[in-house]
């Protein structure tokens, strides 16, 4: 009989191993990879500035008109940021009318700005007169845009502008002819003298150089024509200058204005920034729709429209940068779920080289992404895939090299959940979203883990900052007393007072590689670990080099999984290779979760600290392996019975209150055997969000209960049996079966319900 019981139990335990949740074939990253922003015509930190080119060109023109030795930044600062008052001080200084304050101020300006220094040292009053006039116009127009301004023809603002027009008309020089023309045009426009705007243009326009100022003047003329009712001429100017908002003013909606601009000026400098703006908004909204289940319909329509426009533009022979348009067409295809078409159009146009170096690289990245996504590139053509990924690796290193030169500042470039660097995002997105699922589908879990490890650790390896893997903590002797049992409020206060530092590891136990590995069986993880110890092929060596292969980390993972699978001898094998102080690096230790006694009989009622929580997991594994031996091989049935009970308790507790033995985080789904309705609620959530895990743990729990039940018939010593029942709080059993033991007699004196149990037992008989 007892042999049959033992055989049945062993069989059940054996079967449990195959009830483990297996997730290899259907793994997904634990977040939307769309938030690894990928679609870029320009680098991330390039500001969208439709006038950016104009500002730059204007500063360059100033350089030509003054001195090419003056840095552009100084020109920009002086021309665009200095106020009228500051230039007035310069004028007063030049004409000898400055007081001490003004002299001091101007000398400081000269010291900081080469443009000002030039004006002063060269006594360039012509430039100074113009700058003063321009600043007057600027400040007056700003005042007129103030919501509190009430326009009145006779007010000071109008008088100033009329005076400016006279000054502009009086200028006879040639050096700043265009500049005065621009100021005159601006001023006449503000005075709503649109006829004079047109007259000025018709008289002066043909004599002006075709430079940045000419374009700016033309825009005002376009506005003047519009207000005169001459829409044709206005439209002609706006399209030539890429001014889509002004085209819209003529009654076109945005899309019609955009297409009209393309028709008239297919190489307008307006397009790159505008296309980037479109792509950014679609990328964000498609991410949001995926992440939050929001409605993406509106953006589908817009993306469809842009796709059509981009396809047409890419094929238009007038276009200088067909790659840019093909890239946009490819991106929009991808947004619309037609990634194969996106790959086709991109491949057809990759032979075009853009003048935008970043775009050339971005297009290559996108080709790799689409190819991996649609053609299983990494498993179908592994060598080419490897070459491409090595190229991305190199680009990432080049991108980061200037930033990482100061080794003391490297940690600030690590962002716990996502990267902000284009090539790092590309690297992760291609691997997490595409390559890993491809490898899993091909049945190569080892390769999938390699990809995941590289995805999550290449960048971290580049930062090479120990703090990421070993976050700071005060010396273990100071910390340990506070992590050896339940922490009281007084202990919290003490820790604060003594400034005891405990920081958490935000990377190793929460990245996507860890999430993948944590969902796999121990045997799979062992296979990976053994493979990376001796990589054979160039590809294996490369992925290994990109990875995080800390022995303690991996062996602890394997040992923990073995504990989870109730394979205690295997757990001992690996956990004994982990250095003793490794557990202090883990978040579960630092979070005060490694002190509960896994062999406690009734943790539901109070949690008992273990005597010594060093090597917490290894000690538990050794104890459980020892109990296995005893329950299978001890000649004393009472020892076997007690061992079975302790073993069962270890099984149950390691899946619940002492979860730190078998898991790395207590998710909100774990239920802790609390009373009544709350227990059911937690269990319901657990079953909803992690059904396989919930099922497994329930099975372990149930099997442990079966083991306990099976243990009691083995007792030959009633005293021991009674004691065990008592420790398990099964007092009614003592009353029923062992009332005449020492335990029974003690209970009869101390238990309020003893009499009820005795009566119930008698009724049963």
């Amino acid at each position, binding site marked *: 009989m007892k042999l049959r019981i033992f055989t049945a139990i062993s069989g059940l335990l054996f079967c449990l191993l195959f009830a483990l949740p297996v997730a290899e074939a259907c793994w997904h990253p634990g977040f939307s990879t769309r938030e690894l922003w990928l679609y870029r015509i320009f680098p991330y930190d390039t500001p969208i500035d439709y006038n950016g080119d104009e500002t730059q060109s204007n500063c360059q023109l100033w350089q030509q008109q003054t001195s090419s030795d003056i840095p552009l930044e100084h020109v920009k600062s002086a021309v665009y940021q200095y106020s009228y008052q500051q230039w007035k001080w310069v004028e007063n200084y030049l004409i000898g009318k400055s007081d001490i304050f003004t002299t001091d101020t101007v000398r400081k300006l000269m010291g900081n700005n080469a443009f000002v220094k030039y004006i002063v040292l060269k006594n360039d009053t012509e430039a100074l007169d113009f700058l003063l006039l321009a600043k007057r116009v600027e400040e007056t127009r700003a005042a007129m845009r*103030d*919501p509190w301004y009430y326009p009145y023809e006779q007010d*000071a603002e109008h008088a100033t502008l009329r005076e400016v027009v006279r000054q502009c008309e009086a200028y006879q020089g040639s050096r700043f002819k265009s500049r005065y023309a621009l100021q005159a045009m601006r001023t006449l426009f503000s005075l709503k003298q649109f006829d004079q705007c047109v007259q000025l243009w018709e008289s002066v326009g043909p004599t002006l150089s075709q430079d940045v100022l000419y374009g700016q003047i033309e825009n005002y003329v376009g506005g003047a024509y519009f207000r005169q009712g001459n829409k044709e001429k206005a439209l002609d100017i706006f399209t030539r200058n890429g001014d889509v908002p002004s085209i819209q003013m003529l009654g076109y909606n945005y899309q019609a204005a955009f297409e009209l601009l393309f028709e008239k000026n297919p190489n307008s400098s307006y397009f790159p920034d505008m296309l980037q703006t479109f792509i950014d908004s679609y990328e964000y909204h498609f991410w949001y729709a995926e992440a939050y289940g929001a409605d993406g319909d509106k953006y589908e329509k817009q993306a469809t429209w842009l796709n059509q426009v981009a396809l047409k533009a890419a094929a238009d022979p007038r276009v200088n940068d067909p790659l840019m348009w093909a890239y946009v067409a490819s991106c929009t295809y991808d947004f619309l779920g037609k990634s194969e078409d996106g790959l086709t159009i991109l491949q057809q146009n990759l032979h075009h080289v853009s003048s935008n170096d970043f775009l050339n690289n971005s297009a290559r990245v996108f080709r790799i992404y689409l190819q991996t996504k649609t053609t299983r590139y990494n498993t179908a053509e592994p060598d080419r895939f490897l070459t491409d990924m090595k190229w991305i690796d190199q680009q990432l290193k080049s991108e980061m090299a200037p930033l990482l030169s100061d080794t003391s500042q490297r940690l600030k470039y690590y962002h716990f959940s996502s990267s902000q660097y284009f090539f790092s995002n590309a690297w992760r997105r291609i691997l997490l979203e595409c390559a890993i699922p491809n490898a899993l589908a091909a049945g190569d879990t080892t390769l999938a883990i390699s990809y995941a490890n590289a995805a999550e650790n290449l960048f971290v390896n580049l930062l090479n900052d120990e703090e990421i893997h070993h976050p700071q903590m005060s010396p273990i002797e100071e910390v340990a007393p506070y992590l050896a049992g339940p922490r009281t409020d007084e202990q919290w206060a003490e820790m604060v007072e003594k400034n005891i530092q405990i920081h958490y590891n935000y990377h190793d136990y929460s990245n996507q590689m860890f999430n993948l590995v944590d969902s796999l069986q121990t045997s799979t993880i062992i296979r990976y670990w053994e493979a990376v110890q001796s990589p054979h092929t160039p590809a294996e060596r490369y992925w290994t080099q990109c990875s995080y292969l800390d022995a303690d980390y991996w062996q602890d993972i394997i040992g923990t999984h073995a504990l989870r699978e109730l394979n205690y001898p295997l757990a001992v094998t690996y956990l004994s290779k982990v250095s003793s102080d490794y557990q202090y690096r883990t978040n579960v230790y630092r979070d005060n979760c490694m002190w509960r006694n896994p062999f406690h009989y009734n943790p539901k009622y109070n949690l008992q600290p273990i005597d010594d929580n060093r090597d917490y997991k290894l000690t538990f594994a050794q104890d459980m392996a020892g109990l296995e031996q005893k329950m299978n091989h001890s000649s004393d049935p009472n020892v076997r019975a007690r061992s079975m009970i302790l073993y069962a308790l270890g099984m149950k507790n390691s899946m619940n209150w002492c979860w730190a033995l078998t898991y790395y985080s207590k998710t909100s789904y774990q239920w802790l055997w609390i009373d009544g309705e709350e227990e059911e609620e937690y269990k319901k959530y657990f079953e909803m969000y992690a059904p396989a895990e919930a099922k497994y743990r329930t099975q372990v729990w149930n099997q442990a209960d079966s083991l306990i039940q099976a243990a009691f018939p083995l007792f030959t010593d009633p005293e021991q049996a009674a004691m065990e029942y008592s420790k398990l709080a099964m007092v009614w059993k003592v009353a029923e079966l062992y009332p005449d033991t020492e335990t029974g007699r003690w209970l009869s004196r101390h238990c309020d319900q003893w009499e009820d149990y005795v009566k119930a037992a008698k009724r049963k008989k």
Partner: protein
Amino acid sequence: MKRYQGPFLCLILLFFGIVNAYSQGREEKEAVNAIYHWKTTFNPSKEEWKFLNDNAVKRMYVRFFDVDNDPAEPVATTIFKQNLPQDIEIIPTTFITLEPFWYYWISDSARECRNHDLANKIVTRLLKMAQVQNIVVKEVQFDCDWTASTEDDFFQTCTFARDTLHMLGIDLSVTIRLHQLGMLKNIPADRGVLMLYNTSNLKNYSVSNSILSYNAVKQYLSRVPKECVLDLDFAYPTYSWGIWFNSWQDFNGILHKVDITNSALYQWKQDGCYEVLKDHKVEGRQLEKGDIIRWEVSEYEEVMKVKNAIESYPSLKGSRYSVILYHLDFNNLSKFSQDEIKNIYRH
């Protein structure tokens, strides 16, 4: 604007200082017939000009703009399609919403700066607009339905504005709602206008006439202080409007141009309420069958009842008080006979 504001304010001060030095400056107010102009376009009809003339209206409170938002800015600025009359005293008025005062979480000194700046901006703009319209200003008015939480900020703004205006010999008046009668002694203004209209919550379905109800006014009269420390004028309503509710009695809006006599669209129910008989649009808004319009008018008898009650409180009426009608709109004014208007104005 800031660069110009300071010098402009000085110019304004100089201009009005000179002008008012030749006028009578801050003087005791004459009791006259007055009226509010509250439309965003100043373009009175022939009939409205005739009304002003026939009733010897000598003072007109003209809304120049509202002040709204945070940061505060002028909105709904009046467009002058006709010149303001030179033979009627014009009082530039501004309606200030509570938005500019809602920023609680700033320091006291920041609030003071903000209120000072706001006062300056309002005064500067009102006076500039007056200058453009070529009128002599002896008084400006702030209209604000301040609450307990915005009282301090509004009063501080008034204080700053009044100080500036006094340098120019100009008075500051404010509008007073009935529920503010208990606070007269704290108001930093030279005069107040007690608004004897909008006496009940128009959004409340069970109210029968939110424009004016003697019973509603009566409740507030108990708060009248024994001694009135602020000279008051009194404003009475002459307008009418439709308060629009849906079939669940939820407030939807105010309608000014609804022809409630159209029996094909509206059916009288009771107490001034009409039911909408079929879906249609009014003033661009979609009315649905089953909606209710509570048509409210300024009843002459009710106005007189309130006027008599007010005038029976000696502490309320100063020796010289004006009667002001709200507002200059012939469609509404034509519903009163000439005698009725004369009786309302009589004081």
